[in-house]
């Protein structure tokens, strides 16, 4: 710390890059999970609840066992359970997946708050970070490039999902179920099973996103840990036009824009900080407006989604 360089205004781009890496991971995992679910034809708005429950269960298990990776696994399992529950209820006739999602969001948060009470105080072990800033002498750069393994896994996963949708049988099955229930039945697929499994896998990813929050950054469990990140990530999927690789860029953009407010204050741009805090949302609105088009509205949207039907 004593060798901290005086980086002045360079703190802003550095904070945006660092923030993008630090803050984006939960957005990335939740939006990949939601992308997978929506491509199979269901919307799971409950991922905010899954995220918060994943954060709590991951923290609790990491604290209990001393291993943060077991915590990540527990969070993923919890996410699978929430996903299976959502998928199972939604197969019944007349059930609205959006309404169930909202109910599950509240349930997940309520359960997490209830079971999480004893874990607000204890300090659980953190996930390790990989120092990718070794090439620089500047401690700030080294700190910004402390990259968590989950971020890299998320990046690889985005590419893998994209490849899976395009090139594999499983990807094809998910896309068919998402685009047309009848077509899926016609080729002998059970759309409910495809959606059940996709929702479960999506839930697992959201749970892992939660574990990142409580086990790495900011790295502790409390009831305000998510502050709506799960909901924003669901919206990011639409922003990313249901493309996993776009989800990655959208998550990065959102993380970086969120770092703008504190970073600008730290270099002396101090007035109007409430406006800078709104930067991620303003940016999203602006990009949506710029990329929108009356001719090809909802391009990329799965045909069987209840919002597009």
């Amino acid at each position, binding site marked *: 710390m004593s060798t901290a360089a005086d980086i002045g205004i360079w703190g802003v781009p550095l904070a945006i890059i660092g923030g993008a890496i630090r803050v984006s991971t939960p957005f990335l995992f939740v939006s990949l999970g939601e992308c997978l679910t929506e491509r199979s034809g269901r919307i799971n708005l409950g991922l905010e609840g899954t995220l918060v429950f994943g954060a709590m269960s991951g923290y609790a298990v990491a604290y209990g066992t001393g291993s943060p990776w077991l915590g990540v696994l527990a969070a993923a399992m919890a996410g699978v359970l929430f996903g299976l529950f959502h998928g199972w209820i939604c197969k019944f006739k007349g059930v609205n997946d959006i309404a169930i999602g909202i109910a599950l969001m509240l349930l997940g948060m309520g359960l997490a708050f209830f079971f999480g009470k004893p874990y607000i105080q204890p300090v659980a072990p953190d996930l390790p970070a990989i120092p990718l800033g070794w090439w620089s002498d500047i401690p700030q750069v080294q700190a910004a490039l402390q990259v968590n393994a989950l971020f890299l896994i998320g990046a690889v996963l985005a590419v893998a999902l994209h490849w899976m949708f395009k090139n594999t049988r499983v990807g094809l099955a998910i896309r068919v179920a998402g685009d047309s229930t009848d077509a899926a039945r016609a080729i002998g697929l059970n759309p409910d099973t495809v959606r059940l499994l996709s929702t479960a896998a999506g839930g697992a990813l959201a749970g892992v996103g939660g574990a990142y929050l409580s086990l790495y950054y900011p790295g502790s469990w409390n009831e305000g840990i998510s502050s709506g990140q799960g909901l924003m990530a669901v919206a990011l999927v639409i922003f990313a036009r249901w493309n996993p690789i776009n989800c990655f860029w959208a998550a990065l953009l959102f993380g970086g824009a969120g770092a703008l407010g504190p*970073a600008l204050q*730290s270099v002396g741009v101090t007035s109007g*900080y409430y406006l800078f805090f709104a930067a991620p949302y303003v940016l999203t609105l602006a990009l949506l407006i710029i990329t929108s088009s009356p001719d090809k509205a909802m391009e990329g949207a799965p045909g069987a989604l209840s919002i597009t039907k």
Partner: protein
Amino acid sequence: MKRELTRRHFLNTTAAMGAATLAGAMMPGQARAASDLTVGFIYVGPKDDFGYNQAHAEGAAAVKEMAGVTVVEEENVPETVDVQNTMESMINFDGATLLFPTSFGYFDPHILEVAPKHPDVRFQHAAGLWSADKHPMNVGSYFGYIGMGQYLNGITAGYASKTKKIGFVAAKPIPQVLQNINSFLLGARSVDPEITCQVIFTGEWSLAVKEAEATNALADQGCDVITCHVDGPKVVMETAAARGAYVCGYHADQTALAPEKYLTGAEWNWAGVYTGMVQTVLDGGSIDNFVRGGLSDGFIKMSPLGPAVSDAARNQFEATKAEIMKGGYSVFKGPLKDNAGNVIAADGEAFVETDIALESMNYLVEGVLGSTS
């Protein structure tokens, strides 16, 4: 047949409703019979947050131990109409006659809305600016001069800082927060007048990710001692220590979160204050509408000094603390300007610890980098 069923159903329902009303009407009476006094505590966040709410909840726990007192608590109550509902239900269903709605934002308009409807209930609010000509007589305000604690924090920070830059993660620019920021810097400047303090406002009392980002931004700018005024300082303490900065605590003792980097901390000591107030009511007395206290009154205390505090720092810390314990200490004294160049106090002018003018502070002093809006 169908009509009869409907009628029977109707009769059943009304009977049940009548019974419920009766039970509801009797319950407060029973609660009162079981104990002499029911006291309600309302928190804006979880009551074990290593911070503001935990400090109050520890006070409530001490009240719970008193004979003849029942304590009802509710946590995570937002500073909205929700807190009015919570207060109403504590009064109407639990029979509470003494309420401690502890968060700053509960006062105006929520307590001011509910209090006139319940003249027999006493509302005790932390930090609110009660004044006899504006506010109901069954509302009281209490607070501690914790700025003194931040001044002592600043002394340890002044000795520990090598970069001459210290940092402050703040929630909202309200007078109490501004006073803490200013006191922290003035404490550090009593060691070295060259020191500056960078402040970052997060805009909310509890926003874990933004607090972590703010702490990282401070560390990026070379701040090597960091403190905060947010509801739960856990994230700031852990993030700052992970970046290699020293930390000063706030609200409660956070030594356990960063044992090597923790210098000291300004803590609340509500247990003594709350049991005293409840005892006054049990004895049939009335609590003063405006209660303030500092280190010497046992309203606040300091965390034990950490291993990184030098002997020189320890000496000045102890000497200043002894001065403050005598009462009448002034952190804000002339010549003093705010960071926009306006004169706050001319040479020879001073605001003592108890000066009410300090509670409407709306400026950051010279040396604090930041702005209140």
